């Protein structure tokens, strides 16, 4: 909870700057790149976030990376600030929250689609269109496959869950039988 509050506070601050200068999308892309880099270089993020090392040393390590990056100055300064404040460890949460802010600002919503079998492109387009109609927002999808669903699919948009899986239908049928609804 505390982590999410910190992440939202920092993300909102950066997004506010991005809104002012109109480069919020670029800042978001920079953050995503930095997070991707950190996920591939675990040692880097461990060193930068480790408070055993002096802040100056950690900032030097960060500078080496930033020099080789094409990040905007705002994002670079933002990352330096996170190291100064020992909040660099929350970079994943900050990036996620920043993405939500940009999506909201751009009238975009994200839908997690879990399907039992690969979706055909036509079916995915139809589904996007249907979800856009449902949410009145531009829908960006993230499709994953889960064989345990047996058949059908599940869509999650924020707190909204649309479950059309065979597994859930079987569970519902089983519960109905247990309650004796078919006696």
């Amino acid at each position: 909870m505390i982590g999410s509050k910190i992440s939202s506070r920092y993300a909102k601050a950066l997004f506010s700057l991005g809104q002012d200068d109109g480069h919020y999308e670029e800042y978001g892309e920079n953050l995503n790149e930095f997070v991707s880099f950190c996920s591939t270089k675990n040692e880097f993020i461990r060193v930068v976030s480790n408070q055993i090392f002096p802040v100056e040393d950690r900032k030097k390590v960060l500078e080496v990376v930033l020099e080789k990056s094409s990040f905007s100055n705002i994002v670079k300064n933002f990352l330096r600030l996170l190291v100064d404040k020992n909040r660099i460890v929350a970079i994943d949460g900050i990036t996620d929250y920043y993405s939500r802010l940009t999506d909201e600002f751009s009238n975009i919503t994200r839908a997690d689609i879990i399907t039992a079998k690969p979706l055909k492109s036509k079916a995915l387009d139809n589904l996007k269109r249907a979800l856009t109609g449902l949410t009145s927002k531009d829908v960006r999808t993230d499709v994953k496959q889960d064989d345990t669903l047996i058949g059908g699919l599940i869509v999650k948009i924020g707190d909204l869950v649309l479950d059309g899986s065979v597994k859930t239908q079987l569970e519902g049928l089983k519960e109905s039988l247990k309650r004796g609804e078919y006696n």
Partner: protein
Amino acid sequence: MIQFKGKKGKFVLIAGLILISLFIFCGLSFASEGGGHGGTDGSQRLWDLGARFLNFAILVIILFVVIKKADVKGFFSGRRAEISQKFEDLKKERDAAESRFRELEDELKAFETKKKEIIQQFEAEGVAEKEKIIAEAEERAKQILEQAGLTIKREIQAAKDRLAMEMVEAAAQRAQRIIEKEIKDSDQDQLVNEFIERVEKLH
């Protein structure tokens, strides 16, 4: 007046009487012996008679004096009174004993009566207690039977429910295995299309 009371007095009286009797007997013997050596028979006989008479008179006097002194009458009357008193006392004791016997007999009868009453009371209480225990036992047995009946019904229902659950689980697992085996890509497409139609209906 001399009174011979007690054992010592009686002893003195008897001893006096024996001495006087011996004295008279000796006198009479001596007198009869002296008569054999006499002169004339008539005077001797008269003398002998006089002596005998004198002896007798002395004897009577002595006896009278002795009896007078010894208060034999008083002795015997006292003895009679004593015996009479003793008899009266014994009679009283006998009456008292008889009275006590009757009292004890009455007490015994009362005790017997009381005993019978107590026995009857205890018997009555015992019968009442027995009936109470039997009634309680019957009531308890009835409750136990009712409880057992309820328990049996509950257990049967629980067993039915468990069996139904197991059947449902088995049926669901079986259905899942069949669907997993039989489902095709066309079924998946149909499921997706139906899902899209349902989402569109939500607009």
